[in-house]
């Protein structure tokens, strides 16, 4: 009996201290798709964010307080993401928001953040015009296609010695945008455009396109596609016996992609914002930490979640108080040393200064060929 009451009082003590601890934590809201078609990627991003928080808390937290993540499932849908944001701000009283993965969902959350004057940082959404809406509380630490194209065109033209390039993109805003951006920048460097073709999402047979490609006699072919379409395209490309150099944007150079394409992936180039094989010391430490926690190497989204959370936590520390307004002002002065370069923000909240990399797949591993910091837009 005596023992029992001791246990009870101990438990009570814990409860009280946990409560006290909860009151003192700095709460950050995270909205990511945890179910639905991009759940896998959303989860990777959350894992990255959790890792950043664990690391921070192990080192004493920020402002002497522990950091607590409140994670909501936005499903990549505007309506769900807005609900999540309302809940996080109103009920959980978070001091900053991170998310919401898909550009359309992020665009929907932006006015909510603006209304409640809570800083909102997206580490993934790449639609160019998000930072052009005059929002005062929105920041983005993701690469836009514009930025990728500007940074890579020169490297591509030099490294691959291209004279003429054919462009293939998926038939949507992103694919068409990518083809337009890269062709414009490469043409400015004197690389001739010999073909521009698009294919619909879910297309399975690319032989007609490849026939045209062969007839165009291009030195290189640029491809804007995601894993599924891209892997089939590359497979058929090799079946077709083409030897043109391939380079692309999208979720290339991922383990999934290489698994699907098999040997056909050998030698292709991919322009990606992050690769776990980046040589810097800071990246090696991050990869080790991430691999230990999740038994796999970090990909683009794991790194994006990690970086975005660190940028927010740095801003809280710099602000000196866990108040949204102060954090927003501190975010503007961001100079964050990431595993992949140094992040800074323009006045519009557009991130730049981080590295993007060109990798080549050999022996089923993406190897870094070139690395370059994104310039201020």
């Amino acid at each position, binding site marked *: 009996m005596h023992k029992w009451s001791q246990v009870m009082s101990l438990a009570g003590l814990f409860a009280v201290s946990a409560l006290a601890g909860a009151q003192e934590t700095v709460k950050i809201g995270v909205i990511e798709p945890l179910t639905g*078609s991009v759940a*896998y990627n959303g989860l990777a991003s959350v894992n990255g964010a959790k890792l950043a928080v664990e690391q921070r808390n192990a080192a004493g937290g920020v402002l002497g307080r522990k950091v607590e993540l409140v994670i909501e499932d936005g499903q990549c849908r505007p309506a769900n993401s807005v609900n999540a944001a309302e809940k996080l701000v109103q009920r959980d009283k978070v001091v900053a928001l991170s998310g919401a993965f898909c550009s359309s969902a992020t665009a929907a959350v932006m006015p909510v953040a603006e209304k409640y004057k809570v800083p909102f940082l997206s580490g993934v959404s790449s639609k160019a015009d998000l930072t052009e809406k005059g929002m005062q509380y929105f920041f983005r630490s993701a690469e836009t296609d514009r930025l990728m194209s500007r940074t890579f065109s020169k490297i591509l033209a030099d490294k691959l010695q291209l004279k003429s390039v054919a462009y293939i993109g998926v*038939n949507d805003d992103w694919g068409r945008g990518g083809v337009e951006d890269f062709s414009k920048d490469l043409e400015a460097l004197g690389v001739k455009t010999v073909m521009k*073709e*698009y*294919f*619909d999402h*879910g*297309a*399975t*047979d690319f*032989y*007609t*396109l490849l*026939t*045209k490609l062969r*007839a165009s006699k291009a030195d290189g072919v640029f491809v804007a596609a995601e*894993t*599924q379409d891209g*892997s*089939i395209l590359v*497979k058929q490309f090799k*079946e*077709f*016996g083409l030897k043109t150099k391939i380079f692309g944007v999208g979720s290339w150079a991922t383990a*999934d992609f290489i*698994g*699907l394409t098999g040997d056909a992936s050998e030698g292709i180039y991919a322009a990606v914002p992050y690769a776990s094989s980046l040589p810097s010391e800071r990246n090696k430490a991050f990869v080790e930490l991430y691999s230990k926690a999740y038994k796999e190497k970090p990909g683009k989204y794991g790194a994006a979640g990690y970086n975005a959370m660190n940028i927010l936590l740095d801003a809280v520390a710099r602000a000196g108080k866990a108040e949204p307004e102060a954090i927003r002002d501190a975010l503007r002065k961001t100079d964050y040393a990431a595993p992949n370069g140094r992040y800074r923000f323009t006045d519009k909240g557009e991130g730049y200064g981080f590295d993007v990399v060109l990798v080549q797949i050999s022996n089923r591993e993406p190897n870094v060929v070139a690395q370059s910091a994104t310039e201020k837009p």
Partner: protein
Amino acid sequence: MELLPQYLANGLVTGSFYALSALGLTLILGLMRVVNFAHGELYMLGGVMGWWATTRLGLDFFTGLVLVAVVMGAFGWLVDRFLIERIRHQGEEPGILLTIGLSIFLANTALLAVGTAPLKVEAPISAGPMFLGPVVLTKLRVFAVLVCALLIVAAWLVIHKTRLGRAMRATFQDPMAAQLAGVRTANVYAATFAMGTVIASMAGMLLGSIYSAQVAIGGLVSMKAFVVVILGGMGSFAGAVAGGLLLGVVEALWGGYVATGWVDIIGFALVILTLVFRPYGLFSKRAERA
């Protein structure tokens, strides 16, 4: 012009794939008068099971294909006996609603079970290039076209040359008379649906080895299959083959000489033209059923 042979070859290859993927749909539609909106999902299940059989169970392609056919045949049989049976002879709408519901159920169950990632079905032969004069093909594609032809012929033989096939045709001409003549119509319906399911799933596995199998493909497959069926006419074998080849070749030429970006338009343009000028399809006899 020197690209024309290649475009035609591309079109004929994809066209025969279209024909095979539409065959199960046209059978069920023509013989049973059930508009099977779950057709694409049955195709998808064939691909997913093919992946499972060849990579998880380690079977070779053909053993896997037989396994898929047997399992999916049983599945089709059960679907007819337990689901379609209940709405038989109640007009078209219940059938449409039922198969739409079935398609949603199958797609989401598969999503839960294997996730969204594309799956690789191990191919029976290598996919290296094969040059025939100016035309590039692969052994795998030629092989797949042959298998398509074989399956189509086999299905035709079953329907036109076997006792079961005779019973099927009799049942769908006049169920009452067939029943009076001693045909077990319930079994015939189930066998027809099972056959359609088997053909759809075998197509899914075969084409999964060339492209890749994925859970979300069902809707697209159904769409193309409907285009082929409308072009060729319901229930017509020759129609399915001709409709498939026509769609494949026209898409290839459109993609080759106009733009690959809007290739799906052409299928629907063909459908609209067919519906306006030959509403029963290019090959259908006007009244198949008394």
